[in-house]
């Protein structure tokens, strides 16, 4: 995990450098184009994470794999955060560019709906006492949502469109390389950032769920023996019950 974290930091730093200093300002949008380097990667992440969450939830539902349930459950808040970042940066970008904070445009709206879907998922997850039921019920919701996302996307797009067309497709790119490089660096960096947070949260969640298992207790004893964690900072799992 330290490796992934290191790579993440490196990529994001490099992306920020190229994005903020080395890349030219847009001739029309000037410096505000630099918002793109945060906005676009988080937008990609927000959709990617939803998909991954639905797949993990399906795996957990079908094959009863506990880790898949955990991955799906801990992904939701991360995905919701990225969606929120996308909306905020998009709004900040929209103000100087379109002259408005918010416009009922197709992509903005579908991103907002995606946020609602995340919030619904999180709400359902936390409504159940029993973790197993929570995981299975929210898995059904995630799958239904995943089927619905393209439908919502197209219906909203068809409804109203102001956003510029997609400028980065497979094999085609309308972006100059000097801007593309930081964008891709940031995209990769954000993906890895997700992986890091995902791993951290999954580890915490596994430890919490297995707090009464032998290996967790042993781990706690070992940590207590070192100076880094004095015993009073570690509570044994039984105290939570």
């Amino acid at each position, binding site marked *: 995990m330290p490796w992934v974290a290191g790579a993440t930091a490196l990529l994001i730093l490099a992306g920020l450098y190229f994005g903020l200093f080395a890349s030219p300002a847009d001739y029309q949008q000037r410096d505000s184009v630099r918002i793109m380097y945060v906005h676009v990667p988080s937008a990609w992440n927000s959709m990617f994470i939803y998909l991954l969450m639905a797949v993990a939830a399906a795996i957990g539902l079908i094959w009863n794999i506990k880790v898949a349930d955990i991955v799906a459950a801990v992904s939701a808040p991360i995905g919701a955060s990225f969606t929120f970042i996308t909306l905020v940066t998009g709004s900040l970008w929209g103000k100087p560019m379109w002259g408005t904070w918010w416009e009922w445009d197709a992509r903005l709206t579908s991103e907002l709906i995606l946020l609602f879907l995340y919030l619904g998922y999180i709400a359902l997850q936390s409504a159940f006492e029993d973790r197993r039921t929570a995981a299975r019920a929210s898995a059904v*919701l995630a799958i239904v949502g995943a089927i619905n996302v393209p439908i919502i996307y197209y219906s909203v797009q068809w409804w109203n469109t102001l956003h510029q067309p997609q400028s980065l497709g497979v094999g085609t790119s309308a972006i100059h390389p000097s801007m593309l490089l930081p964008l891709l660096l940031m995209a990769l960096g954000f993906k890895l950032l997700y992986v890091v947070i995902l791993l951290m949260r999954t580890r915490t969640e596994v430890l919490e769920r297995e707090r009464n298992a032998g290996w967790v207790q042993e781990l706690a004893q070992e940590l207590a023996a070192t100076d880094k964690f004095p015993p009073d900072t570690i509570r044994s799992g039984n105290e939570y019950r």
Partner: protein
Amino acid sequence: MREVPGVLSALGVLIRRDLLLALRRRAQILNPLVFFVIVVTLFPLGVGPEPNLLQKLAPGVLWVAALLSAMLSLEAMFHSDFEDGALEQLLLMPQPVFVTVIAKVLAHWLLSGLPLLLLAPLLALWLHLPGDAIVVLMVTLALGTPVLSLIGAIGVALTVGLRRGGVLLSLLVLPLYIPVLIMGAGAVDSAASGLAVDAHLSIMGALLLLSLSLAPWAAGAALRISVE
């Protein structure tokens, strides 16, 4: 050994049972309809009685009100059966869960969607919607309200075991209703301004078919999870 009744007769029995139960508790059918009427009434009071403005708002107002009132009646779909244990018995039937869900959805639609459909033209007149648009409104409601019942069934099935499922239910279901709202209101809107509505209606038909084929399956799975 007794012969297992066929799928269709089971469907008929279940629907008759639900309709009968609803007839004994008429308030349950009437309340969402009264709610529908009141919500629509609120809009002229809120935005002013200007006929042009009302006509412009009418498709959206009617559809949003229909959405909300469908929401309200959803909980009744499985809730009382869950409380008295009938739901578990329904899931134990030899017929697939699919059949139970379809019967429940159909009964729900007959009790909430259909009356809504019949009431809507009256309210559309209040909002000064032209005649052509009213016809289109009825067609979209006929295509759209079953979708609302079907998608809603998934949400209710997921939340039926929870003590305070009501607000959560709307949180889960309303985002999924958005395509229906856009298409339905959009069709009425273009009809009111004299444009073609074929595309809207085709898409709504597609949504209906898609949800008809997938939603009962998902709701069945959700019911099993909630009841176990």
